[in-house]
């Protein structure tokens, strides 16, 4: 399983900020990197003997929303990170946009009322039904590099 690093989140935020939304996307420099690093690492540190990437991705999505590392755009960042981490591990997200919106909002409210595990279950159920194995895969050498960088990020404490 390959996860995301702070470097990749920086790029996600740059891409999001180039799209025009009513609420602005904060710059990477202004977000709480300790919280973000924790949200990116913790789903991969949990016991997951089956190496279930869908469950780990669901946890990552919820952690990014719940950690509230940025002043705004946390849900937008979580959507892009979910899409990206699934792609990285050979899956394609095919959920309808309205459903994804509803789930992101539900995660916010469930976490607010202390039902974080329930939120993860909801997202996991969605991913089980609405993802499929990707037909195209990144080059194996490139995948190795991505994995190497992720392992370094997991072991280090550099916050970029």
């Amino acid at each position: 399983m390959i996860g995301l690093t702070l470097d990749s989140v920086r790029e996600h935020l740059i891409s999001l900020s180039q799209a025009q939304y009513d609420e602005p996307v904060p710059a990477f420099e202004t977000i709480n990197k300790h919280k973000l690093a924790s949200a990116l690492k913790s789903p991969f540190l949990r016991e997951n003997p089956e190496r279930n990437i869908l469950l780990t991705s669901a946890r990552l999505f919820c952690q990014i929303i719940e950690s509230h590392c940025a002043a705004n755009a946390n849900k937008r960042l979580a959507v892009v990170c979910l899409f990206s981490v699934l792609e990285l591990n050979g899956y394609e997200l095919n959920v309808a946009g309205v459903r994804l919106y509803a789930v992101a909002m539900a995660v916010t409210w469930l976490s607010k009322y202390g039902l974080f595990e329930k939120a993860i279950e909801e997202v996991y159920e969605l991913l089980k039904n609405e993802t499929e194995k990707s037909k195209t895969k990144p080059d194996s050498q490139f995948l190795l590099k991505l994995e190497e960088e992720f392992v370094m990020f997991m072991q280090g404490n550099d916050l970029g």
Partner: protein
Amino acid sequence: MFSRNLSQSTRSASTLDKTVKNVPNASNRKVGKISAQATFARASSQRAIKKYANTLRWLGGGDRMGR
């Protein structure tokens, strides 16, 4: 006069060089190298933004959905 200025600038450049080299955990970005993760993220986020343009717009406060 000219030679003194030149030697000063050479000395300060080499000091700066040493300082940069000694910084622990200097990220690749700072020396102009783009990581594989950043390269992948750049392309992947573009695909996500294209595929889920409306979802992201609603989450970003557009159309007052969820407000």
